[in-house]
């Protein structure tokens, strides 16, 4: 039986336990050690916890809610007005969502490719990932539609094919791996295309590019780092240590061995100079990329 004096601590522990349970991090807490009255109180508190948990972060106003915008519930949203092409509207929305990183081409080089099941619509590209979007006027086929595997072999620059219904509400995305038979440890040989569940076009393409585009996160404490003053000595020490560690590696793959060998010609002072220039704000953006590129080329040659 829990002592009344410790009830606050017990209650807080049980609330923590229940939160962990809701978030998939533990079992449901056991209330067996409590008296009937305490159990009733904790049960009511747990109901409140369940009603409140995971309400954060707060949602933006409806006008800025990404879901409302996608649903076309907000005035000025880019979703189709009556008569507009829903697929094109969704692709435009995708372009906005990724801040223009996803480029659209409505007249791609493969646009002449037509079949009974697929009609060419557009191409979406971002950082070496290219998705060919085809319309499926007769609805989505159950498995792999004939021709996708052939298309991907014929156009090796295309990373995936997306088939969409005319209203953009059902779409599947197939990579080269999806359009070939595969072996599942549990179920043996699987037919092509069986693991491509249908979802709205924007969700399918959004997931694909979300998983492939780099996400630049804010560096915690960057402000303090910038205000440190002269860091030449520290930068040299860090560069020397890191290079020494990398040079000690003994990889077995030839291309990795070549990479380690090329590090021998890299001077710690060059790396340290680069760090100091970044820290002092003299080097950023494209200039930083050019300097890194030049450094890489110099040691590789």
């Amino acid at each position, binding site marked *: 039986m829990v002592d009344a004096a410790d*009830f*606050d*601590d017990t*209650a*807080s*522990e049980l*609330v*923590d336990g229940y*939160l962990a349970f*809701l*978030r*998939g*991090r533990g079992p449901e807490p056991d209330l067996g050690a409590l008296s009937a009255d305490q159990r009733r*109180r904790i049960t*009511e*508190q747990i*109901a*409140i*916890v*369940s*009603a*409140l*948990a*995971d*309400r*954060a*972060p707060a*949602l933006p106003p*409806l006008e800025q*809610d*990404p*879901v*409302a915008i*996608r*649903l076309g*519930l907000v005035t000025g949203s880019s979703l189709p007005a009556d008569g507009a092409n829903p697929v094109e509207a969704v692709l435009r929305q995708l372009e906005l969502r990724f801040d223009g990183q996803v480029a659209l081409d409505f007249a791609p080089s493969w646009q002449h490719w037509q079949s009974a099941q697929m009609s060419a619509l557009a191409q979406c590209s971002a950082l070496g990932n290219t998705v060919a979007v085809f319309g499926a006027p007769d609805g989505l086929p159950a498995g792999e539609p004939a021709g996708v595997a052939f298309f991907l072999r014929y156009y090796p620059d295309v990373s995936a094919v997306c088939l969409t219904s005319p209203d953009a*509400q059902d779409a599947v995305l197939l990579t080269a791996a999806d359009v070939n038979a*595969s072996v*599942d*440890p*549990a*179920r043996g040989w*699987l037919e092509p295309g069986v*693991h491509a*569940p249908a*979802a*709205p076009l*924007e*969700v399918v393409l*959004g*997931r694909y590019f*979300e*998983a492939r585009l780099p996400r630049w996160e804010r560096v915690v404490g960057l402000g303090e780092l910038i205000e440190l003053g002269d860091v030449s000595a520290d930068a040299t020490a860090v560069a020397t240590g890191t290079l020494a560690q990398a040079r000690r590696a003994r990889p077995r793959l030839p291309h990795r061995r070549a990479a380690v060998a090329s590090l021998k010609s890299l001077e710690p002072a060059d790396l340290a100079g680069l760090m100091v220039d970044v820290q002092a704000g003299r080097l950023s953006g494209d200039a930083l990329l050019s300097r890194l590129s030049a450094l890489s080329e110099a040691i590789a040659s």
Partner: protein
Amino acid sequence: MDSDARELAELVERWQTGYGDVRGLYESLREGMHQYARRGIQRVLAKPPDEHRVSDVVYTAFLELLRGDPAAMTSPVGLSKTIAYRRGIDEGRRILRERQRLSSLDALDLAASLPDRREILAAAEEEALHQLVARCLQALTTDQRAVVQATVMGGRTLSDWALTVGTSHQAVSRQRARAMEALRRCVRRQRAATAQPAEQPAGTPAGKESPRGRRG
């Protein structure tokens, strides 16, 4: 029934009878749907989900709700949350599958399985409870509200919050326990106040935790 709950019930009823507006419906349901979508994803991944994924789940779930027959739905509020939860679990499983390159994890297919009526009603009841709790939160002290918002509504731990506010873990833990107890009492008072005029206009026997107004 309080005014917020009545307003939501009217909106849902209008939609069920074919006169509702989808924008208003989404506005009323979106918070609960986001909550359950997050919960579904977290249940599988055991870590806070990416908000883009949550938006995808809510978008898909809301479209799924709209495709259903409104008149045949027991509780659109509960159903919307249930669908969001299941789709959240699907999304979590999909993320795992992508991460582990597994093909043997199939998505749950809500369309193929009948929604569990008890689950839907429980979700609807929880949404109604949330409306009461949201009002009760305003009655807490600023510190109590902050600890509840950070550790219950958000994903911060008590230790993390104790560091943030510069106090001990035990102090924060007890502060939250008192806040939760205050919320519990407030919800009981509100429920009793709502039930009193409808059920027993006068002379209701008051228990230990009866609202003050009724004692007077």
